[in-house]
C-alpha cells in the first residue's frame, strides 16, 4: 500500500493529545493572534471526555447509582482511554464496560457490579433490536405431538438470558427502575434474568434454573427435545409445560423451524 501524505499533517498529534492531558498542546494550534492555546485546547479535551462519560452514564444508570457520579466519572475516564469509541453510533459505546469493571482491581470487593453492567447492556440490546413478530402459543400447539421434540424455535431478535451468581435483577430495580423503593437486597441470592421485547417496551423477569436452561438452549437453536433434557438436568422437578408457557408469554421466539410466525 502506498502511504499518501496526509492533507493535515498535524492531525495525528491533535488526536493523540485529546485523550492524553499530560501531552502538550499540539504544535501549530494557537489562540487569538497566535497566542498559546492551553485553555482553549482544553475545551476540546473536556468535550471529548465529558460527552463520552455522559453517554456511558446514560447506558449504565444503575452502575452509576451504585458507584456514585464522581466515582463513575473517574472510572469512565479510564475506560474511555482503554476503549475509545470505534463508531459514531453512541448507543453501541460501552460494550466492554462489564469486563472492564470485572477486572478493575479497586472494585474487586464488589463482584456483582460487572453483572449489573451486563444487565444494562443486555437491556439496551433488547431496546434497539429489530422489530419482529412473536410466535403465538397457538402456532406451537398446532405442531403434531410426534414432531414436537424435533421442533426448533427461532429466537426473537430482542430476546436474551443473563445468568448471574448475584441478585442482579433486584440490584438494577433498586438502583435504576425503582430508586425510591425501600428494602435491602440480599446479596447471597443468585438470579437469572430473561429479556424480551414483544412490542417496544423491554420486558425482564427472573426465571428459575430449569426455565433458564430451557430458554438458553432454545435461543441457542437447539430442538425442543434437547432443550427439555437440559432443563431437567438443571432442575429434576422442572415443570416443562409451565416453563415453556412462561417463555411463550414473554415473547422470546420469532417463529417455528425458521418459518416466520
Amino acid at each position, binding site marked *: 500500500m502506498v502511504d499518501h501524505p*496526509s*492533507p*493535515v499533517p*498535524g*492531525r*495525528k498529534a*491533535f*488526536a493523540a493529545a*485529546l485523550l492524553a492531558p499530560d501531552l502538550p498542546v499540539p504544535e*501549530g*494550534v*494557537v*489562540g*487569538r*493572534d*497566535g*497566542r*498559546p*492555546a*492551553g*485553555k*482553549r*485546547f482544553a*475545551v*476540546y479535551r473536556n*468535550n*471529548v471526555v465529558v*460527552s*463520552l462519560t455522559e*453517554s456511558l452514564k446514560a447506558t449504565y444508570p444503575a452502575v452509576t447509582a451504585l458507584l456514585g457520579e464522581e466515582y463513575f466519572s473517574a472510572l469512565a475516564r479510564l475506560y474511555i482511554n482503554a476503549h*475509545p*469509541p*470505534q*463508531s*459514531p*453510533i*453512541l*448507543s453501541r459505546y460501552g460494550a466492554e464496560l462489564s469486563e472492564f469493571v470485572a477486572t478493575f482491581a479497586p472494585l474487586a470487593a464488589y463482584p456483582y457490579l460487572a453483572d449489573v453492567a451486563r444487565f444494562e447492556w443486555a437491556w439496551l440490546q433488547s*431496546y*434497539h*433490536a*429489530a*422489530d*419482529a413478530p412473536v410466535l403465538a402459543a397457538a402456532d406451537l400447539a398446532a405442531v403434531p405431538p410426534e414432531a414436537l421434540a424435533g421442533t426448533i424455535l427461532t429466537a426473537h*431478535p*430482542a430476546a436474551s438470558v443473563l445468568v448471574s451468581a448475584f441478585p442482579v435483577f433486584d440490584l438494577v430495580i433498586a438502583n435504576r427502575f425503582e430508586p425510591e423503593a425501600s428494602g435491602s437486597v440480599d446479596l447471597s441470592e443468585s438470579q437469572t434474568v430473561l429479556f424480551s*421485547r414483544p412490542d*417496544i*417496551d423491554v420486558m425482564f423477569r427472573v426465571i428459575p434454573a430449569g426455565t433458564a436452561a430451557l430458554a438458553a438452549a432454545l435461543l441457542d437453536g437447539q430442538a425442543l427435545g434437547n432443550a427439555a433434557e437440559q432443563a431437567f438436568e438443571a432442575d429434576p422437578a422442572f415443570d416443562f409445560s409451565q416453563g415453556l408457557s412462561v417463555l411463550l408469554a414473554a415473547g422470546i421466539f420469532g417463529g417455528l423451524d425458521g418459518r416466520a410466525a
Partner: protein
Amino acid sequence: MTAAFPSRIDAALPQRAGVGLKGEHVPEILANRPDIGFFEIHAENYMEVGGAPHRHLETIRRDYPLSLHGVGLSIGGAGPLDRDHLTRLRKVADRYEPGLFSEHLAWSTHDTTYYNDLLPLPYTEATLAHVVSHINQVQDAMGRQMLLENPSTYVAFAESTLSETAFLREIVQRTGCGLLLDVNNVHVSATNHGWSAETYLSEFPLDQVQEIHLGGHAPDIDDDGLPLLIDAHDRAVDQEVWRLFALVANRVGPLPTLIEWDNDVPAWPVLLDEARSADRILSGAASRELRRAHG
C-alpha cells in the same frame, strides 16, 4: 424508493422555526401535536435497527417534516470517509425522507477512534481539496445535496492560509453543496478569535444558506483572560445571537430555523417559547420581503 409509512405532509421544510427532537419531549409531541415548523434529528440516533426510537419517529414524521443532521461523518477527517457510515446515513434518509440534510465542517474520527466532538481543521489549499472530495462523495452516496454547517471553534491553526468564509465559499463553488448558517457558531467563533461577526456575515455566501441554527453558549475565559464562549447548547439563545439572526433574516428572508438545546434540556413549553421568538423574527423578515417585492 418509497417510505415505509405514509406521511400526510410534504418533506419540504417550511420557512419557520423547528426544534431538535429530544426523547424527553416525545410523549408531549405524540399526545398534543404542537404547532411547530419541523423537527431536526441527529442521524446517529436512528442507526439502530428497531425499537421505540424508530416507532416514535415514524409516528412524528406522519405529521411533521424533518431535517436530518449528521454529527459523525467526520467530513474534515484526515483519512477516507467511513463508507459503512455513509450507507447508514442513506438508509436513515430513505426511511424518513427529510426535507434537508446537513453535516459539519469539522472532524470527529481519526484512524478508527471516534471522539464525539466537532473538532477544528486548518484552512489550507490541501484541506480544501480534501473536504471538497469528501463532500462530493457524500452527495453522490446520498443522492442529494447536503448543507455544510459553519463551526464553533476555540483554537486556530498557524498553518491556515484561508479565512473560514473564503474556505466555505470555495467549497460551495466546487461541490454545489448548500450551507447551514449557525448564527450562534458565528458569534462564538467571532468572540473567541476576535473577529467581527458582522464582517464574517458580510463575507459569508448568504445566498447559499438554506437553513439556520440558533443555540445557547456558555461563557468562559482563556489563559489571557479573554472571553472564550463554549458552544454548549445548554441554555436559551443569547440576545446578541437573536440580534445577528434578525440581521441575517432581514437580509436573506425567512428560512427554516432550528433551536438547538441538547444539554440540560428544558421543559417543552420553554423550548416552544424559543421557537416562537424565532418565528416572530422570521415573520418580520417575510413581511419585509413582501414589501420589497411590491416596491
